[in-house]
């Protein structure tokens, strides 16, 4: 039934153009109307929530409001990781389209298995488009992206080329061409590729933009000027933003998303704030006791997807840290996030001195062995020869499993590092809230 058709997308944009101006209370009331149905659905059809709610003695009222919502149990990421298939609805609405299972690539080091369907994909596209609408981006220029991709895909020197932007936009508007390169490419290869392709907009990780700028400076190469720089996937500090903008000579626009629920926050077109995409998710910032943090106080990011009836994600602790801000002077009622903490990466250093985006093969780690649930992991490069793999899992891996996984990690890193394993009970976040999936102790 639902489809990514252009008219449906624009019909949704028509609404988003309006809802963004609603007050916080109006937005929340509309969220609660949907959430009430989602809670019913979760309790009635999803074993994990039936059990979770029962264990917490939670029974939601006929009408949800702010106070009653705070009684809905919060799920730690580990609980959802352990849930496995019981997180999937036994009766996903047929009208929402085919259910497809997905596993997060583990950019937070905590892989999770969840479900998507046509409705969740439709809403993913909606917010992709809103991002363009907000930032008044023309769809005809050539765009480029240097992002994570599996080994063998979009590799240097050529990357991949498409005559159109991705499907999210191309179903609705005529678009220009799109090019992509695997972020694991060497910095020189990346710069060569950018010079050849000359995209008018470039999307990448902040750490990669910075590394390219620094590399160009160090080696005396001229950094190509690019008018629009889209930062994704990692925290973008104000300092990094300023450095990137200056080095590349363009405007930096950031966004905050997650694989499980899509767009969480987009950058305000008029101010530096992030606006929560309240029509996509209910996003809360909670302290360690699950109480809401006031603006200015950092806390855990807890999200609820409004449209995922295939594997409901209700009050899920995302593993990120952020803090709310005061209402934005732009007048939008969408809640404001002032700072997003967490999620950043060091670069891998090779014995020849080159640095690379660390591709460690998260999917292989997440599926390390039959019957093992991986909750969290982190790779630490201790030297130019050795990488330690820390894995928090339901059990330790045996020698054969370790050997198999080590081989996969070596292939992904692109160098035969010696891989050691450790299986700690947990990997705590760093004091600044950052959760790094790759740490390098080697200084270039």
């Amino acid at each position, binding site marked *: 039934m639902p489809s990514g058709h252009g*008219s449906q997308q*624009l*019909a949704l944009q*028509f609404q988003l153009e309006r*809802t963004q*101006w609603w007050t916080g209370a109006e937005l929340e009331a*509309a969220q609660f109307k949907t959430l009430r149905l989602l809670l019913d659905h979760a309790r009635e059809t999803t074993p994990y929530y039936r059990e979770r709610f029962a264990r917490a003695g939670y029974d939601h009222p006929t009408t949800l409001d702010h106070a009653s919502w705070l009684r809905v149990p919060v799920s730690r990421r580990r609980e959802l990781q352990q849930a496995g298939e019981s997180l999937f609805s036994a009766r996903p609405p047929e009208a929402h389209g085919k259910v497809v299972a997905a596993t997060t690539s583990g950019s937070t080091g905590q892989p999770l298995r969840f479900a998507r369907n046509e409705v969740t994909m439709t809403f993913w596209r909606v917010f992709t488009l809103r991002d363009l609408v907000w930032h008044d981006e023309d769809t005809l220029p050539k765009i480029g992206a240097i992002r994570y991709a599996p080994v063998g895909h979009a590799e240097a020197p050529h990357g991949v080329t498409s005559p159109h932007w991705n499907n999210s936009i191309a179903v609705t508007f005529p678009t220009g061409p799109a090019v992509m390169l695997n972020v694991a490419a060497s910095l020189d290869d990346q710069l060569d590729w950018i010079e050849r392709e000359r995209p008018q907009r470039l999307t990448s990780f902040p750490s990669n933009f910075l590394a390219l700028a620094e590399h160009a400076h160090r080696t005396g190469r001229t950094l190509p000027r690019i008018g629009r720089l889209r930062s994704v996937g990692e925290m973008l500090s104000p300092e990094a933003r300023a450095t990137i903008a200056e080095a590349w000579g363009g405007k930096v626009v950031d966004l905050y998303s997650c694989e499980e629920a899509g767009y969480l926050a987009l950058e305000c077109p008029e101010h530096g704030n992030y606006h929560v995409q309240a029509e996509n998710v209910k996003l809360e910032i909670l302290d360690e006791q699950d109480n809401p943090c006031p603006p200015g106080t950092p806390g855990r990011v807890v999200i609820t997807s409004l*449209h995922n009836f295939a594997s409901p994600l209700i009050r899920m602790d995302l593993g990120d840290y952020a803090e709310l801000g005061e209402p934005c002077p732009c007048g939008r009622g969408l809640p404001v996030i002032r700072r997003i903490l967490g999620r950043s990466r060091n670069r891998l250093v090779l014995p020849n001195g080159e640095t690379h985006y660390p591709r460690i093969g998260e999917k292989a780690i997440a599926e390390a062995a039959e019957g093992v649930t991986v909750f969290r992991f982190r790779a630490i490069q201790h030297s130019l020869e050795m990488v330690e793999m820390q894995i928090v899992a339901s059990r330790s891996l045996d020698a054969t499993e370790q050997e198999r996984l080590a081989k996969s990690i070596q292939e992904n890193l692109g160098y035969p590092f010696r891989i050691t394993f450790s299986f700690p009970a947990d990997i705590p976040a760093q004091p600044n809230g950052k959760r790094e999936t790759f740490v390098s102790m080697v200084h270039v």
Partner: protein
Amino acid sequence: MSEAARQTVARRHPVSGMPHPALAELTFPTLTVEPVSRMLALQFQFERSEWWPAARLAEEQNAQLAIVLAHAFETTPYYRTLFTRAGVRRPAEVDAGFLRSLPITKRADIQAAGRDLVSQRHPKEHGPVTFARTSGSTGQPVDFGRDNLTSLMWLACSLREYLWHGRDFLGKIATIRQLKPGEADAPDGARTAQWGSSVASFFPTGPGVLLDVASSLDDQIGWLRREKPGQLVSLPSNLVALAAHAKARGEPLPPIGEIRTFGEMLPADSRAILRETWGGKVTDMYTCEEAGFLALQCPEHDHFHVVAENVIIEIVDEAGQACEAGVPGRVLVTSLHNFATPLIRYDIGDCAEFGPPCPCGRGLPVIRHVHGRRRNRVVLPDGRTGFPRLGERTFVATPGLRVAQFKCVQKSLAAVELQMICEPRPDAAQQAEIARVLTASLGHPFAVSFSFPERILPGPNGKFETFVSEVS
């Protein structure tokens, strides 16, 4: 255009106004299916294109105009002949200058063209063509083709007008207009569970109430007092008469949030009277049956914006030269979406004038005044005035007669004259029947005389009028 200006429409939209959902659990935002999606997709586009600068609008219009002109030339005998005779060669690039070089088509030309105006290769994707006879409010019935595309654009422009003016779709809407006898007679009128299709097909709405405009003013006032609508839609002449009647009786009318007018010219003094009488906003629109919506009232000002996504409007003088802003002239309409019976530089018989660019920031051209479209009211011997219902649908269809044009002139409190351009002339029995229909419709036994002039001239405003009262 600044982002702030673009936001004005979106901010005005009431929170209750979310479209019909496809699924009960997906209402925020609402996941829609056709035809709702397509309609809102059009609105989304309108909400961007209306802020384009005039040059960009013209560029997009010209691209569509080129397609329409090629279609008219290649598939419509009337235009092929017209353009060939005028020695028109289609250039590689169509622009406003080229449009101005094309011959003007008058109503009489189209009447004479008959089926030659119909495209011989109507695009199948535009749906089946139906022919609508314009009601003859200008006295010259003409057949025009409509299809799914023209209907879609009609609905889209209508909905746009509702969105511009930020109406609360859940309120009650009252309409007093021409209806068939028995359809919505006083004292109770008729009720509908929803508003008209241009809103109710896409959004949940409140109820509608209807009353025949032929109801007495007392009946209308009583009905409005009972219904207490949030908005009232009617003909300017009827609303002004209501206001005058209430004032004469010293009984103030209950306030109504918005008074909306259609179908006739709304002069500035009438607008002021309506505003004063009901204390609310007064909104007019400019439409014609042949091409649908021509211009909508600016949400922030009293003048109109041309619906440039639907039509190209030109205003020209008697010599066919473009009039500058502030200079009244004849209104020429070019429809951008009628592929069934293309309308190109069609003189709709109205007089209007452009205005300077609007301070609201929209790039849509401004029409400052529409001078045409005023119907007089019939004056009865007891001094009451009424909307002149003529029964023209009946007498135009008299078997054996081909009525090209007519006009009814009230000569005195006791007599009316019916002017007809008609082949053949009606015989005595037909005249008696037409007189019977006319007096029954007017609601008073006027003496009816007939005349058969060679031409019926437009009124002082440049508009052909079907009813003119010489009794003031």
